[in-house]
């Protein structure tokens, strides 16, 4: 089992290296112009966000609507470290990610006793509180936006940190810890009775998820230039959730593909941007209705299987 996992990880690494070399070559030769390079960069950030949220929502089964809040913590901490302390880029990213993880840990300890609906609302509440704090702090320049963050984020940084995120989340969900996390999603009473420390694993998954959201935030802040708190509102959290839901909860390749599609499509079709949120809404409803309807189950039986492990659970 372990050998198989290591082999898969090595194959992933090879795939990442190949993709990276191809993309860099295309960018350097000008086949991919700067417009597309920018979109690819955003793709990487969104994949990081979707994969990290999938750990909390897909694998742990806890619907959280505060992912943008953690992203905001990471973005602002790393941007402020860059501006005021002149720290090297890598260090600011680490500090941003760690502080987001710490906030996730501190928030997670009291709230993960709650489940489902309540957890969803309380994470939304924390997201709003984080945003209100940022708006009212002097050092973040409030609603006007923080300027002066150096544009340190390059494609290589985004790509390899995205790869790292996928790597870590993949390794976690395919380990003993991952099986514990999935067991909690399936039935938390049964998992507790089997000797799994529910609280520990819930907080672990939640904090790791927040940590990578913070990392994505740091990358974003060093890319965008002007950091406005409004970007990190409830809508951003829902957007990340849509990526996870469209890709399939508890399905990593799905999250990656969905994040790519949902980043590239709106940039491609400018006229589409008006209908973007409308389409997101329909995606959420349709995905959930098709998941359980007879038509949806029949449709999925016909489609080729991308993964063998998560077999269809028939009700």
């Amino acid at each position, binding site marked *: 089992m372990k050998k198989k996992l290591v082999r898969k990880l090595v194959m992933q690494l090879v795939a990442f290296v190949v993709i990276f070399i191809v993309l860099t070559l295309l960018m350097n030769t000008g086949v991919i112009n700067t417009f597309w390079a920018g979109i690819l960069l955003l793709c990487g950030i969104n994949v990081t966000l979707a994969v990290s949220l999938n750990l909390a929502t897909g694998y742990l*089964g806890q*619907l959280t*609507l505060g992912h943008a809040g953690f992203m905001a913590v990471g973005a602002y901490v790393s941007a402020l470290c860059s501006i005021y302390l002149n720290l090297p880029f890598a260090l600011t990213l680490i500090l941003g990610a760690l502080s987001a993880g710490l906030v996730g840990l501190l928030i997670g300890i*009291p*709230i993960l*006793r*709650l489940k*489902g*609906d*309540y957890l*969803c*609302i*309380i994470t*939304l*509440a*924390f997201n*709003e*509180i984080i945003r*209100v*704090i940022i*708006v*009212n702090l002097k050092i973040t320049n409030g609603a006007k936006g923080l300027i002066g963050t150096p544009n340190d984020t390059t494609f290589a940084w985004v790509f390899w940190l995205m790869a790292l995120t996928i790597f870590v989340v993949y390794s976690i969900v395919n380990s003993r810890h991952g099986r514990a996390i999935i067991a909690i999603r399936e039935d938390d*009473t049964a998992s507790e009775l089997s000797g799994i420390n529910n609280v520990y694993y819930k907080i672990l998954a939640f904090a790791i998820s927040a940590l990578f959201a913070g990392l994505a935030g740091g990358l974003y802040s060093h890319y965008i230039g002007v950091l406005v708190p409004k970007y990190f509102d*409830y809508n951003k959290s*829902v957007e990340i*959730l849509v990526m996870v*839901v469209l890709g399939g*909860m508890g399905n990593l390749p799905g999250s990656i593909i969905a994040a790519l599609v949902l980043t590239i499509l709106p940039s491609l079709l400018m006229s589409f941007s*008006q*209908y973007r*949120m*409308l389409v*997101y*809404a*329909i*995606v*959420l*409803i349709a*995905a*959930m*209705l098709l*998941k*359980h*309807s007879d038509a949806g189950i029949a449709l999925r039986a016909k489609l080729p299987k991308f993964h063998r492990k998560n077999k269809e659970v028939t*009700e």
Partner: protein
Amino acid sequence: MDFINQVINGLSTGSMYALVAIGYTMVYGIGKMINFAHGEIIMVSAYVALICMSTYHLPVVVSVLISIAVTALLGVVTEKVAYKPLRGKGSLEVLITAIGVSYLLQNIFLLAFTSSGRTFPQIMPSGSIKAGGLSISYITIITLVISFICTGILLFFINKTKLGKAMLAVSEDQGAASLMGINVNNTISLAFAIGSGLGAVAGTIYGCKFSLINPYIGQMLGIKAFIAAVLGGIGSIPGAMVGGLMIGVAESLTIAYISSDFSDAVVFGILILILIIKPAGLFGKNVREKV
């Protein structure tokens, strides 16, 4: 005196939250789900009332009645189309669908009416009663009176009529209720209809109070009313009323004495405190989980 004024203002806003919170609480009690789209349904009701009054020049009472009817229908249709197929399939799925419905309604109205606000006709008398240092506007008083009348009628309906008792039975135990000959589907639809209808009253009140409506109003209103329902103990109608009033007062005092920037944060802070200290809410029952 200023303090008392602020409290009365808060009570008035709070009673509007209470009407919305009752919708959440009824749907939660009977359908065991949070209707995330409830706030957007109220936004729709405000637009319906506005169009009836300003485009078709209908009388106020007729407009409000049409708005209540349309909204109640919308609530029932949402339940039938989006929530019923997922009943009993897991709360995560229902929750995500509800978020989807909420976004769908918001964006349809954004496309139809754009994000710029529209002025709501002034249908309530302006001016205020002055007594001593107190100055209470008519809108404040009318809002309070209407909210209390609606809640009173609802409590009477639920506790005294046959349909109301059927609702109580369904919220207690769906399976047992259906064995006793109660049509569970119809009862759940009725809960959605009543909740949405009350929301329509709140929507009109919102329009009168703030005199400007846009497609975004439902979101915050919905979340705050939900917090009110949780504070009072979700599933309890008197709880929703008390919770709504408390949230309204807390918000009003924050705006008056701290800063309007923090009013939302304070409301969310209340939610976090109540969920950590007493998740069942003030009037809620502690339900022990059975394995």
